[in-house]
């Protein structure tokens, strides 16, 4: 943990995006998490994803609940809107915000405690309703703020820092999300930004409920031998299905692969995700195959990562409700109150 603000100086040859911002412009306050926390790497990945996509920071609403992970929105996108909800209620608040103003880009950041324990009911319904959002669970398998008790995502048999094995079955967040109807589902690892950054970019470009389960080692309480969420364990058991290239409408397509090795997933704004398959048999648009792959790798003791499932024809909550294109918070009295004549007509029709 550092107390000093990060120095303002930056590399003179620093890259600038289409908005004229550098990646430093997407930073927030200095992190107060433990040194080496995986969550800080995820914050850095979010910063890079937003920078690369040239997202206007003031159009992002970052929402979180309670916990180490839910502190992180302070540490990125310092120029964006933010809301720290009560514990586990981020999905509900995010749903409400999205209903009120569909024009913002919603980023929900949560942890395994916030989303898989206290907030699992909220999580389930936000996904089920297809809220247009990027939902990232920073998953370290322990309750870090209360000194390392097992969380609901800790693997059965994995050991705590003091050597006690976890007796309970874990909740698999990606399998749950797919079953609940999420239309963009991936898993990644805080220690692999080359996979995580494009996965987050794809999620931002996707319309509908995009869910990313990101394994994020807790250096203080869950980075020892016997843990299944340590840097060493995840690196040794990582089964990546694919690597991604997110190609927005504007960028030229440069990757050149043999046919059959790649799969293309269309995005709503005309861009696409070019996947290089590491597992040639996996089709990311096949929901059943995604679930099967998750179970297959899990039974082999592997952690499956990459883009697991994407629905090219996804829709969102507003499509289902048939709301107007204009955000509800911008509708004035004239739009909402049809007037006496209209009321008379309605009443007459009911007589």
């Amino acid at each position, binding site marked *: 943990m*550092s107390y000093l603000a990060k*120095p303002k100086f930056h*590399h003179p040859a620093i890259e600038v995006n289409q908005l004229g911002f550098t990646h430093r412009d997407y930073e927030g306050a200095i992190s107060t998490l433990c040194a*080496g926390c995986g969550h800080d790497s995820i*914050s850095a990945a979010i910063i890079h994803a937003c920078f690369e996509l040239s997202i206007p920071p003031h159009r992002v609403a970052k929402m979180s609940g309670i916990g180490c992970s839910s502190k992180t929105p302070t540490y990125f996108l310092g120029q964006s809107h933010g809301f720290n909800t009560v514990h586990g209620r981020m999905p509900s608040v995010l749903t409400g915000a999205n209903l009120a103003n569909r024009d913002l880009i919603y980023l929900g950041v949560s942890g395994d405690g916030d989303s898989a324990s206290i907030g699992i009911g909220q999580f389930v319904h936000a996904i089920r309703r297809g809220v247009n959002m990027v939902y990232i669970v920073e998953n370290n398998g322990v309750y870090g703020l209360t000194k390392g008790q097992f969380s609901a995502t800790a693997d059965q048999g994995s050991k705590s820092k003091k050597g006690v094995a976890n007796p309970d079955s874990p909740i698999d967040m990606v399998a749950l999300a797919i079953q609940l109807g999420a239309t963009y589902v991936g898993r990644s690892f805080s220690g692999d930004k080359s996979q995580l950054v494009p996965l987050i970019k794809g999620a931002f470009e996707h319309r509908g409920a995009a869910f990313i389960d990101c394994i994020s080692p807790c*250096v203080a309480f869950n980075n020892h031998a016997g843990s299944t969420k340590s840097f060493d364990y995840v*690196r040794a058991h990582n089964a990546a299905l694919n690597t991604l290239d997110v190609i927005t409408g504007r960028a030229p397509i440069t990757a050149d692969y043999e046919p059959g090795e790649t799969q293309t997933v269309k995005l709503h704004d005309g861009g696409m995700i070019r996947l290089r398959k590491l597992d040639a048999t996996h089709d990311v648009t096949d929901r059943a195959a995604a679930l099967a792959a998750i179970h297959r790798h899990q039974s082999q003791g592997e952690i499956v990562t990459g883009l697991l499932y994407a629905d090219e024809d996804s829709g969102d909550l507003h499509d289902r409700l048939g709301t107007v294109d204009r955000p509800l918070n911008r509708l004035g009295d004239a739009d909402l109150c049809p007037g006496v004549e209209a009321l008379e007509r309605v009443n007459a029709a009911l007589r």
Partner: protein
Amino acid sequence: MKPTDTANPDYFHKVVDCQWACPAHTPVPEYIRLIAAGRYDDAYMINWKSNVFPGILGRTCDRPCEPACRRGRVEEQPVAICRLKRVAADYKGDIHALLPKPATTKNGKRIACLGAGPASLTVARDLAPLGYEVVVFDQDPFAGGMMRTQIPKFRLPETVIDEEVGYVLDLGVELRRKKIESMKEMLGMGFDAVFVGTGAPRGRELEIPGRQEAAANIHIGIDWLSSVSFGHVTGIGKRVIVLGGGNTAMDCCRSSRRLGGESVTVVVRSGFDEMKASPWEKEDAQGEGIPILNWLVPKEFTHDNGKLTGVVFEKVKATRDAKGRRDLVPTGEPDEHILCDDVLVAVGQENAFPWIEKDLGMTFDRWGMPKVDEVTFQSEIPNVFFGGDAAFGPKNIIWAVAHGHEAAVSIDKFCQGENVKERPSPLTNLVSQKMGIHEWTYDNDIANDIRYKVPHRAAEIALKDIRAEVELGFDDKLAFKEAQRCLNCDVETVFEEKLCIECDACVDICPEDCITFAPDGDEAELRGRLTAPAANLTQDLYVSAALPTTRIMIKDEDLCLHCGFCAERCPTGAWDMRKFRLDTTQAGDGCRSRA
């Protein structure tokens, strides 16, 4: 790439750009921290040990450290290192107790230093406390050499010279007034070693038509400055032309302004940017209303009845020949005739050794320079050593000091019967600065301030008195603020791959994007695929051995702020901030063989 060998003293030394660039390798960040802490005595002594004349250099140094300063790459202006040195000299207390004492027992060896300039005085200071009997010979009654005779008093007050030259002479060094006329004579005086520190005493002539006829009003710059310095010259004509573009020319024109010159003009053959004068000296001259005219080659002195009337100049431009050499060719425009009453010629200095007999076994090159070893400063006569401008031509004070230290090492080894070619290694040390979980012994909060200007005396007062020092120096508050701009480059980022868990925390936090974890490659290719490209080839890449993921850690040293955030964010202590200390070994026990 091969993992970086940090055990090589040069590696971390190069990271301390200022110290590496300083010929005397003064530990700059260390003394700047002491200034910030208000410990002026200690800051002064670090300088005194390393460069002998902190008060003088703090006003006159050519500052090779400042263009090298990392701050100049991170933002626009380097730290005002030179003027901070002056702060240490200005605000120190009585430091006599901290100086070495004259040797109580002599070692029986006698050393002659010819010329009482900075090189000779450095040799004397290094050798006298060891028990050597050192005699310094000079034609002038005072010691100091060019520091006293050529640098105008409005840049360097006499009191500062007296004090710092005094510290050397007080070590039991004898100053003997004598014009050096024969090397044979010197060698016959029974000294065990002779050090030649006679400088480059001859101002270059300008032989163009009219030189002889108008000689009464044409003066050689360094001789004229010397006459001004000793009070032999107290006035000059109203219209003065100074020929030349070096620091001597700047001193000549500014002195002229103070001695009655109302319209003083500097005329230079080459372009403004190519002038040899330091940028700040050109700036100061222009600030006193002195125009600098470029691309004009003097062709003729015009005169009337033996009285100088002006100088005719040919207009030129620079071209490059087939070999890329620069050549000045006439533009064809009409010549320019500038009227004046006096001319000061400051077109360069030359060495002159008419007093060294040709049959002593020393060989001279075509510029009349004796053959001198570039490392040991030994001549072809084993007990004769050279240093300062006398060794390799005109440079500046800090080089003379550096030469003096090395020559003193050679003389010490020579007199102790050792091989002068075996050079002592420097003392180095690397110590962690960690005091707590996010606490360091140094202030790692990077100041955003831009360079502070040194206050000047008002021009209307400064131009009336040639002895009134123009620069007033930083006060303690400004000095503190300027000192805070130092990036503490001697507090090194040290990486231990065995401890690294590759969590990326350092990569994410680094404000300058210096750190990368990537697959190995050769250097040229690696430089292009780092977090930020490493385009400055003069700065090293710090490279680790392979990590568990087979990647390597690469840190581009170029723009590192030494803020320590990588170490603060490192969960395992793989990064640590360690203070690198390098003291060059001077004459004495440290330079002698252990055998």
